[in-house]
């Protein structure tokens, strides 16, 4: 017996029965200040119209008034959950523009820190997605593990959430073995915890009924909307920037890109759960093969890149981030464009939510894993 919502509901408008529901900027289910104006017929959504801009800070204009180094703390405030990847993107973009080399040891540490951050972000997604579905316990269990990652990253970088750690040419200072040992002990402990998470949630009948065949993203829509990240991989495309345009030592490590073909919420869930395992594999390989050596190469004190433009793509926990910098030879960028993954991922929500029940629409929003400050910049 299928528990999917009836697909034969026809969307003809009946007079006086439809109403407008404001899934307002303040709502427990929208993961940030997102407003969606919904035209509803009872519990069915006729039309969804996201209204953005509640967190708009004009980052791109601010970046034009700051030097390249001054922009570094700004970049990680856009996606505060995957801040390490944004940091990495900015630093690699400027290094690409100026032609700086990065020592191998620094690249390994960059990879370890970014993958730890990816795991922390996915843990929060897991807790928040299940909170949207109504299960309260996984959220707190995920945070127990996330606290350990944040403690490790605080030991390394000094901050818990919005890291401003990488520098042009490498890392700010030496990394000792304590960080590597703590990372490995966490990874070994987390493999067992992941099994607990699968026992609690992944096999649950109610969870399957809420996620299976909900919010199916067709492969046809993926390219039309520019989707990237676990959302895309849930619909069958094995596109991962770390494999396609490798940066920062990723080509030295052996990992697979998990994909599923069904394109529903359950597929996206499975992709992200498998990404935990792949991140742990990458971290293990990076820690085991890390070379000794310097962590920063010599770069000039003031960064004055040559005239030109550069595009740097990085795989954040949410998808592909592209930073496009146009430089006019001065120490401030002429134009910076942040192509954030959640922007494209949110643009498909209006199409996915049509004809769905309100409960399903919120489950879809949770499975898209967005960070609204990143969308609003």
């Amino acid at each position: 017996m299928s528990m999917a919502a009836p697909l034969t509901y026809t969307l003809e408008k009946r007079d006086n029965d439809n109403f407008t529901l404001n899934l307002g900027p303040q709502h427990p289910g929208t993961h940030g200040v997102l407003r969606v104006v919904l035209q509803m017929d009872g519990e069915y959504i006729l039309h969804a119209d996201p209204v953005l801009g509640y967190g708009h800070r004009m980052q791109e204009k601010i970046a034009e008034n700051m030097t390249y180094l001054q922009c570094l703390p700004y970049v990680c405030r856009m996606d505060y959950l995957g801040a390490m990847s944004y940091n990495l993107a900015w630093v690699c973009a400027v290094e690409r523009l100026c032609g700086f080399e990065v020592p191998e040891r620094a690249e390994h540490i960059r990879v370890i820190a970014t993958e730890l951050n990816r795991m922390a972000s996915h843990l929060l997604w897991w807790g928040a997605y299940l909170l949207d579905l109504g299960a309260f316990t996984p959220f707190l269990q995920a945070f127990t593990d996330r606290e350990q990652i944040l403690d490790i990253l605080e030991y390394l970088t000094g901050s818990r959430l919005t890291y401003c750690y990488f520098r042009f040419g490498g890392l700010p200072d030496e990394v000792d073995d304590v960080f590597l040992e703590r990372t490995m002990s966490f990874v070994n402990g987390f493999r067992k915890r992941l099994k607990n998470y699968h026992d609690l949630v992944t096999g649950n009948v109610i969870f399957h009924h809420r996620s299976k065949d909900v919010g199916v993203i067709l492969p046809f829509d993926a390219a039309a909307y520019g989707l990237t990240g676990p959302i895309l991989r849930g619909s069958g495309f094995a596109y991962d920037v770390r494999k396609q345009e490798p940066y920062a030592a990723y080509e030295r490590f052996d990992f697979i890109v998990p994909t599923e073909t069904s394109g529903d919420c359950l597929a996206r869930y499975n992709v992200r759960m498998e990404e935990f395992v792949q991140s742990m594999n990458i971290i293990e390989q990076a820690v085991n093969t890390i070379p000794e050596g310097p962590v920063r190469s010599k770069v000039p004190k003031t960064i004055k890149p040559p005239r030109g433009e550069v595009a740097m793509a990085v795989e954040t926990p949410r998808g592909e981030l592209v930073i496009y910098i146009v430089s006019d030879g001065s120490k401030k960028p002429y134009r910076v464009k942040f192509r954030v993954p959640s922007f494209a991922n949110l643009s498909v929500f209006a199409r996915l939510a049509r004809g769905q029940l309100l409960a399903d629409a919120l489950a879809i929003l949770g499975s898209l894993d967005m960070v609204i400050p990143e969308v609003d910049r």
Partner: protein
Amino acid sequence: MSITPLHLLIYLAGISALVGLNAVILVWLERKVAGHMQFRYGPMEVGPHGLLQTLADGIKLVSKQLLVPNQADKPLFLMAPIVSLVPIFVAMMPLPLGETVQAWELNIGLLLIIALGLLNTLGILLAGWGSNNKYALLGGSRAVAQILAYKIPLLLCILTIIMMAGSFSLRDIALAQEDGWYVLYQPLLFIIYIVAITLETNRSPFDFSEAESELVAGFHTEYSGMGFSLFFLAEYSYMFIASALASILFLGGWQGPLLPGPVWSLIKLYAIIFLLMWFRWTFPRLRIDQMLSFGWKILLPVTLLNFLVTAGVLAL
């Protein structure tokens, strides 16, 4: 047996004490159970192991401003929590907690409790409509849809037990289990009854009417302070009544070795309440149409079949 005003006074005092004490204990128990299931302690600060936490919360809630939203239907808005709460005092009358511990021996006690259990949903609907808030309205209408799913299977469960015991009176049903508790004869029915009371008391995984992540707070979005606490007093009291019914109908009520009757009664009752709390902190929420599907396509045929089979066996 007639009721004198003195009886009424003693009864009201006793029931009020029970309802109040039950709420205090259950709020604390819920938070402790939630905490321990989530790898944390729960309240520990106020009083030893957080025992005085409910008192502190109660004082906080009572001291909050009673807001009535603009253009809300004021009489309905203010009446809704009262409609939810007052029937509890009547519904607790026929509940026997011991051989002689019972407020009023009614020969149709069970019928009275079932009838009054519906008024909780009426309170929710009034709150949903009277709040002038679309989220509350959605919550209220979901609660009404929920009745359709669980009421008939619940009634069939209870009818089966009545058939086996031969009486509507709760005392007689408990006494009829002297030879063997009904849970041994009807294990499937016990499971269905537990599911049905989870639906009736709006507990997770069936807490659609107050779904926090979908409808901001469902039917009690606009309530603050005392109104909100009255709804929760009502919810915990209905949990008490439903679990008490479960222990009387299936687990033999006050019967048990060694300990006195009321103690056994409370042990069984609170064990079932613990089960309901366990459900809340483990499972995600169903969707409303899935719940209706489940109620009509699974619960109803199974309970009907069970009823017919029991009738057949008893006739032989």
